[in-house]
């Protein structure tokens, strides 16, 4: 239970960074932190205490459920590709506006 609470704290810190900061690069990094926190919560929730490695014939006790892990791998790969796309847009934004600050870009647009 403590582990899940700590993971949720990471989620809250990342959300705070996403709201507060005006740097584009930092916003994208905070999105990545959010994703990591969600994955942590997912893994810690689906692991019953006393379970062991999900390898057949290797573990003495009941193994952890491998299905959530298989789902999460997809999430990691999609997160990486979304990051790549967002960073490509960042390069274009920088060359169009000459800055990477949300606030300055919004003032320029007015």
């Amino acid at each position, binding site marked *: 239970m403590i582990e899940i609470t700590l993971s949720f704290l990471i989620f809250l810190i990342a959300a705070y960074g996403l709201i507060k900061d005006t740097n584009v690069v*930092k916003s994208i990094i905070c999105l990545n*932190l959010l994703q990591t926190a969600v994955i*942590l919560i997912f893994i810690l929730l689906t*692991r019953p205490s006393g379970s062991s490695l*999900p390898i057949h014939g290797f573990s003495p006790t009941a193994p952890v459920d491998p299905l959530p892990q298989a789902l999460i791998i997809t999430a990691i790969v999609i997160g990486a590709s979304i990051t790549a796309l967002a960073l490509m847009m960042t390069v274009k934004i920088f060359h169009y506006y000459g800055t990477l600050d949300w606030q300055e870009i919004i003032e320029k647009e007015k």
Partner: protein
Amino acid sequence: MIVRILLVILIILAILVVKEKNNLHLIMYFSIFSFTAASVYFLNYALDIALAEVAVGCAFVPLIYLITVSKQNVFTVLIDKEFLHGEDYQDNDLYKKLVFLLEDFCSYYTLELKVVTKRVRYYPTVQGIFRPGNIDLIVSLDEENNHLVITGNKSNIMIPRLDKMTRKYKNIDLIEVDEYEGLDE
């Protein structure tokens, strides 16, 4: 117990990421964060996720961040090839002034100067120059008055700052254009 310590380390690293101002330090903290998260996955018997996280979160994603941040400080200037025509263009008074201005500007705002030379008159619109090559400025020669004309994108926040520096040079004019305008009216 170890998992709890690692989670506390993760929280500290997340706070460091939120508080950090320097983009390069930010990326390094993120890389360490991903590695620690991979250790937590491993200790919770999620081996395949730990593998994927080490490969993607700890190496690939910081790499593309580094590429982005290294492109962030480049200030690309396109100089018309017809201005650089001839062998003695480096002794030209205008050329010396231009180089001095650009180096002064880039060192003041800690930008990295990158110079490209092309024939500008072959391009029908400004958009065709600015967009594909990530060009920030176009420098061309006005032969009638022997003036240098610097063309910048209206949306770029650096152009008004360059304009302040350009005012003390009489032979250099700076004009701001919208991306969708033509080069010569």
